[in-house]
């Protein structure tokens, strides 16, 4: 199989995630887009692990999965706090530091 087909799938998922982070207003949806980007990185890591025939890439993918789980936990706690303080999960309304 071509290495590139995995890499281009991963690039597409990453760019979709970038669009979601930039264009979404709801905090939960922004976190979902971040999750898409992390997954794209995982596909890259595992594809290169198969390409160079070394288990290191898979170990890194496991670490990324773990960190992503921690990130979702803390991220959702932050979104919950925003919701509690502003009565809405909209990230555009978090502008109290704006001059």
């Amino acid at each position, binding site marked *: 199989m071509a290495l*590139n087909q995995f890499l281009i799938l991963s690039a597409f998922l990453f760019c979709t995630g970038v669009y979601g982070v930039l264009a979404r207003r709801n905090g939960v949806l922004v976190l979902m887009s971040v999750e898409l980007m992390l997954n794209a990185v995982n596909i890259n890591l595992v594809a290169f692990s198969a390409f160079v025939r070394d288990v290191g890439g898979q170990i890194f993918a496991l670490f990324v999965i773990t960190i992503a789980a921690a990130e979702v936990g803390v991220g959702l706690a932050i979104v919950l706090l925003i919701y509690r303080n502003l009565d809405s999960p909209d990230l555009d309304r978090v502008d109290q530091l704006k001059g």
Partner: protein
Amino acid sequence: MIAQNIAFWIIAVVMAAAAVRVVTSRNLVHAALFLITVLIGASAQFIILLAEFVGVTQFFLYVGAVAVLFLFGIIVTRAPMQPADYDNDQRWPALAVSLLLLGVLVALLIDAFGHQEIELSDDLLAIGRSDAVGNSLFRTFVVPFEVVSMLLLAALIGAVAIARRD
């Protein structure tokens, strides 16, 4: 090799379509379910790449834990069940940025790895099995492993401390 290629393209098209729906869906629960589709697809791609352990871990951790966390997040922020507009006013600049990034990445990837092939064979299967992954994790990467366990503990305590109602 043909069978793996057909499986790859079917799963890849499903993943791409679901990913686009995650960032364009006007219903939060639908977006979460499309995200689960993408995560299951990634797990299937890992199995195609003969990385069994990572594939199964991805399935259990993401589809089992992260997806449920997202659904809980949707519940506690009391999202409306009917479709609503969740986009801000920078949709077109965001689309331009992501398309530009995609173009640059694809051009670079084709230029750099255009003729490289992944050979799916038995020695690759031996690399991805859980005994090989476990050996590497607990011998070569044991210090990062312990650091990650501390980080998970810190994230757990931090999430509780942030979300607690005083």
